[in-house]
């Protein structure tokens, strides 16, 4: 794997523009390569890789309930990838979606537990939705504030905030919100606090699809979206243009956190029906890769998140039917991400081979 970059042999040049069709071909090819590399662990377990992939597809798509289960996995990934997009566009490396989801879930759970018998169905859900968004947004605002004010490293700050949020939930679980004494379980939500289903899946998927469109418009058609793009290109340019960079960062992070918070609300109210410390379950991290691999394009995120969801759901069936460890999903996802990350290089750069006699000694 560790093939050194032999600069003497070849030269790199940035490509200007590639034919979009060719670009997508490269990307699809990289997915194909990843899937072929995924043969290796399956072969190690002594199973037929073709059969295994077949089971993955079957287990995720062959029945309505499997499709519903797959979509249930994809929805938070998609929603959260949408949240990540504006931050990453701005080159603000928000890896705190995990914590923002969690805090959104906490706020929504508060109303689900203590207001479910006092409010009618839809007002309750609306309050849960809004409180989730606000809580996620505020949680995201903390690192953004310090970044804007003192240029505190946001990657590390947001990362730490994840574990603080998770710890808070763990405390709620065993403390004030605990159901049966000593059980460490928060009671299940009453039906009043559960979001309705559309076509068998909680309506979060509709919200997510609406967000896809809204986010596309926001990023491409609004002034704020433009400002984000400018900052992403160069903070200095943005400053010269008279933009208040700190303010825009905080605004964008609030927005991002708010969407993550909504995802948190959808998870507790639509999928889990209760809160526990693993509520985000890695979605905050995986969705970052979803957003990045989609080139921050909202519509591409639908495809990528579905793909990862198929892998995850399918691997579960794989474990059931063929006793292949379900962690195979993580491995193939990892390989997939590696290949797709790598392929961008061939899209962005051209390799120009030099003649051997002009080789020069580096170091």
């Amino acid at each position, binding site marked *: 794997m560790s093939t050194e970059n032999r600069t003497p042999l070849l030269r790199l040049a940035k490509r200007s523009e590639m034919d979009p069709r*060719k670009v997508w*071909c*490269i990307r*699809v*090819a990289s*997915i*194909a*390569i990843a*899937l*072929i590399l995924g043969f290796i662990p399956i072969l190690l377990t002594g199973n*037929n*890789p*073709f*059969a*295994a*992939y*077949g*089971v*993955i*597809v*079957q287990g995720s798509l*062959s*029945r309505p*309930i*499997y499709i519903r*289960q797959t979509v249930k996995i994809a929805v938070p990934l998609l929603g959260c990838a949408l949240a990540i997009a504006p931050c990453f566009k701005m080159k603000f490396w928000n890896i705190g979606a995990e914590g923002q989801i969690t805090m959104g879930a906490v706020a929504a759970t508060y109303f689900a537990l203590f207001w479910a018998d006092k409010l009618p169905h839809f007002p309750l859900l609306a309050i849960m939705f809004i409180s989730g968004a606000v809580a996620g947004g505020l949680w995201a605002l903390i690192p953004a504030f310090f970044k804007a004010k003192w240029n505190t490293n946001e990657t590390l700050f947001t990362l730490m905030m994840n574990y603080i949020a998770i710890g808070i939930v763990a405390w709620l679980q*065993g*403390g004030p919100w605990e*159901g*049966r*004494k*000593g*059980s*460490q*379980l928060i*009671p*299940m939500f009453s039906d009043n606090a559960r979001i309705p289903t559309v076509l068998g899946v909680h309506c979060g998927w509709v919200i997510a699809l609406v967000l896809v469109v809204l986010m596309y418009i926001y990023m491409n058609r609004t002034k704020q979206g433009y400002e984000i793009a400018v900052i992403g290109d160069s903070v200095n340019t943005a400053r010269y243009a008279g933009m208040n960079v700190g303010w825009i960062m905080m605004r964008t992070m609030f927005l991002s956190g708010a969407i993550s918070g909504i995802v948190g609300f959808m998870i507790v109210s639509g*999928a*889990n*029906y*209760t809160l*526990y410390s*693993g509520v985000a*379950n890695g979605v905050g991290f995986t969705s970052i890769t979803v957003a990045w691999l989609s080139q921050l394009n909202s519509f591409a995120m639908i495809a990528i998140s579905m793909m990862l969801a198929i892998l995850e759901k399918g691997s*579960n*069936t794989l*474990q*059931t*039917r063929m006793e292949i460890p379900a962690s195979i999903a993580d491995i193939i996802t990892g390989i997939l991400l590696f290949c797709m990350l790598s392929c961008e290089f061939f899209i962005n750069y051209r390799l120009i081979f030099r003649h051997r006699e002009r080789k020069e000694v580096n170091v």
Partner: protein
Amino acid sequence: MKKIAFVLIALLLVSGYAFASGSAETAAASDPNTVKVGLLCIGDENDQGYTYNFIRGRDEATEMLKADGINVEWVTKFNIGEDATCTDANIEAAEEGCQIIINNSYGFEPFMLEVVDEYPEIEFISCTNCASAFDGRDNTHNAFANIYEGRYIAGVVAGLKLQQMIDEGTIAPEEAVIGYVGAYSFAEVISGFTAYFLGARSVCPSVTMKVSFVGSWSDATAESDAALALADQGCVMISQHSDNTTPATAAQSRGVFHTGYNNDMTGVAPEASLISTRIDWAIYFYEAIKAYVNGEEIPQDWCKGMADGAVVMTALNEAIAAPGTAEKVAEIEAGLADGSIQVFDTSTFTVGGEELTHAFALDTDGDFTADSEEAVYDGAFHESVFQSAPYFTVQIDGIEWLNAAY
């Protein structure tokens, strides 16, 4: 080249699909004497404790049923969390054709209950939990065994060892301190360690106990840390209500003794582990699956004890146990079987200095506080009588809770 790749990926998926279709759901339903059973586990056999004990029960029950002409096809899923992944695992097992689905951990039940109404023809079993007797559903079941009997005997073994150490002058009477690694401060655990403590005190009057809760059923590291912490605080005997063997390893590394749960732990700690008690799940699995195949009802709330073989003791570690332990164990087993010994005999313990005269067993209104069925009568607290899951939650004198937060 790229087009080739595209074609390749399509080919890959299609051929795989074709390959695999038809491989699923072949066995089920066709043969009335074959039953497909799902077993969802919180850990895996590597814990050599809780989940391993279930796997053992699974394999033994399979053999027993085979002798009766019943074939069981198992779908076992490992490392399921006590969270929504459990809901998904239940759906998965149901869709893959399981006719009975067994959930092996306490925390699985609320997530399992999310699924049961979708599959009325499938029998769902939640081990160690307590909802099914009152939930009005026919297809949910609970099961547990009177593990407190086994713990009482393990306590006697520990007490005899402590008394031997006192008699030999190794420790002073007040240094006979037991350290107990508990998962949560929760009825099943409280019931267990109280039974254990009462067993120890019945043969070693000066014994006291410290309980440390780790906040997880299965966290090898935390269990080990807790056991080490207890040993460092002067505990000379370690016992556990948690899923792994690391408390035994920890006890051995600190030169103190240990009694285990779920599995014979003398293998990992030959110089420390005296004896273990475990539930023999094969008894229940056999009964439940057999009932299902014969078209009979699986009991809503199953509970059996030592007399029925549902609770067993592992081999006594004679090399380090106090002399005469085996005889004493046999005597107590007989006493428990004929009812002459009551584990929670209210004359043997006090609560806040006073004898226990009243405690409710069941929570009927769902507020998580027991409110019905008096459990104290005939001079004893009657555990696992009104429901299989333990309901003893009283803090008795002589047991110190180190961190009640869990």
